[in-house]
């Protein structure tokens, strides 16, 4: 029997589910491989149980937590996909500021009405168990195809744990630091094919920090190029990179 697959979204821009549509003709192949039972943005229909549930977006409200737990209870395998789901993504920027102040700036006089409540942004794995993290803002759609194919064959694929610099070197790009830019490639998880440096822009760190990053090497790079911690803090906090790495 074909595995039942469902897609869900929480607080996000829905750019990652757009990558599913962007698979073009490959979607037809995937639809033949799996049974797509729930995907609100593209179809009408629901199901009670799933083999694979894809979760996009961050958790920012109590009722979202309840909805997420309910999905977790009804699925065998849960994939957090996209930076908002895997790390909290840009949605975590608000956690760096005083939440009441944030609400006042946006809502003005109505800021403390009870229905305008929000809590600090959480990644999906801060609420439920996640079986696979598909990183990126947005996700890499080739990774999506690879993961679905692997799971259909009963294999859980491995998430890359080496830095973007590895992929960037393979692309033979000129180092962003040599071009006078501040790049998060040395400590950011690979898997994107170093897409930003390849397009002339520094890595923004959207795939999160690698486990056990080489902090000394990062510090050496920063020192060599006369970059101070203050210069890079803003870069580190766009995609919720763990604060201890920036120390």
């Amino acid at each position, binding site marked *: 029997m074909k595995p039942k697959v469902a897609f869900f979204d929480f607080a996000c*821009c829905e750019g990652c589910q*757009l990558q599913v549509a962007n698979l073009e003709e490959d979607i037809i192949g995937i639809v033949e491989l799996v049974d797509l039972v729930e995907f*609100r943005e593209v179809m009408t*229909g629901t199901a009670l149980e799933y083999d694979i549930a894809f979760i996009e977006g961050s958790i920012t409200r109590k009722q979202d937590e309840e909805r997420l737990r309910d999905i977790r209870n009804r699925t065998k395998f849960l994939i957090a996909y996209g930076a908002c789901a895997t790390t909290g993504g840009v949605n975590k920027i608000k956690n760096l500021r005083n939440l009441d*102040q944030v609400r006042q700036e946006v809502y003005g006089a109505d800021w403390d009405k009870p229905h305008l409540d*929000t809590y600090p942004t959480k990644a999906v794995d801060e609420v439920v168990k996640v079986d696979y993290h598909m990183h990126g803002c947005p996700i890499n759609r080739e990774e999506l195809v690879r993961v679905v194919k692997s799971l259909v064959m009963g294999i859980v694929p491995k998430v890359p744990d080496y830095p973007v610099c590895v992929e960037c070197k393979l692309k033979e790009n000129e180092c962003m630091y040599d071009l006078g830019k501040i790049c998060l490639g040395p400590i950011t998880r690979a898997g994107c094919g170093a*897409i930003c440096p390849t397009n002339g822009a520094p890595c923004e760190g959207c795939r999160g920090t690698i486990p056990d990053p080489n902090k000394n090497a990062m510090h050496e790079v920063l020192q060599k190029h006369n970059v101070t911690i203050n210069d890079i803090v803003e870069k580190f906090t766009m995609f919720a990179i763990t604060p201890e790495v920036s120390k």
Partner: protein
Amino acid sequence: MSGDSMKIDVHHITRVEGHGNIVVDIDNGTVNKIEWQVPEAPRFFEAMVVGRSCEQVAPITSRICGICSIGHTFASLKATEAAMGITISEQTRKLRELLLHGETLQSHLLHVCYLVVPDLFKLNSVVPLVATHKDVVLLVTKLHRLANHLCDVVGGRTTHPIRTAINGFTMLPKPKELESLKKQLVEAVDDLKKLAEVVKSVAGNIPDFVRETEYISLTDPSDYAFYDGQIKSTDVADPIAITDYLKVTNEFIVEQSTAKWSKFNRDSYYAGALPRYNNNYTQLTDLSKAVATDLGLNGINYNPFMNNIAQVVELVFAVERSIEIIDWLLDNNLHPEDRSFKIREGQGVGAVEVPRGILFHDYTYDQNGKCVKANCVIPTNQNHANIQLDMEKMVPEFKDRGQEQLQFLLEMLVRAYDPCISCSTHFLQVHFV
């Protein structure tokens, strides 16, 4: 089933971007409630960019919306450039226009073909069409792939563009890439004609419903406006300056929904492809005009469902303009430019037409180029009040068709607007009963 008593409660309407609910309560012929509600989670972007340096503002606000990420990037860059007193080169402007057409193509194809056409075929998604109309699905995927390819070639990525920066591009497309892109766009003109035929074959299922409202879009004397222009309303004779956008958008909070709504000269207005068409249709190309006429758009139109037909017309226009822009870029020897600029204190407003309508970003920067204040007014927000008022006219007119049919028509109405609810709730949150 009669229209005497019915309760419709569509929780999280499908095939729209983001979460919305429709609630209708009719008791013994008395309409107690008709509500368009938005329960999307809040994200607080305007507060997120406060304290950030100008270079980081566009990459962050791009994340307001996946589908309109290119348009958000440009509204953001234009606002920042206005604040800093930067004038972009003609080359940068042409590349941005081309990339914006790429996004219009991506978004309109996705919306019309994947989200709306299933309604016209009376199906619950595009998936069953793979079995019954594989040639049409393959035509659509081919066109959509081309739209994405355009965005990859110019912007570096289909969603959340990488190369777009303040005062220019971090990398330029190669002439060979542009030549190949042009060849594919020329072929796409015939594919779009075929697509228009398919839409025409089911266009009879577009509901016959009319409600005249105020139509607002950009307008530009030199072109059918997407990237640049002034604000045009069908209720006002002269165009209005972009810097006066707050006089037009007038965002306000209503009790039934905490989604901010907009109104200008009436209780609501319409932003999107139909308003663009209504304000600027004389500036379309000959072929896009012909497609419009063939699909029933003959000048100003008051049927909100015709927004989808206007989107088909704009597909043709965007492809034709893209070909012209590529010719210009190839003739003008595309070359790297100096992107440096001087940071200064100030405020600036940027506006572009994104697939769903007119979009405004407004930033204030301090002398170090850090953002101190931000405001983004999104097309879907501007449309919420108009959707509500359409529903209020539609329910009494169509209630005799029975609950199932009425619910279907109301869902279709919401989809016709192509709402982008993630966008519209970039800062707001609604609880519902």
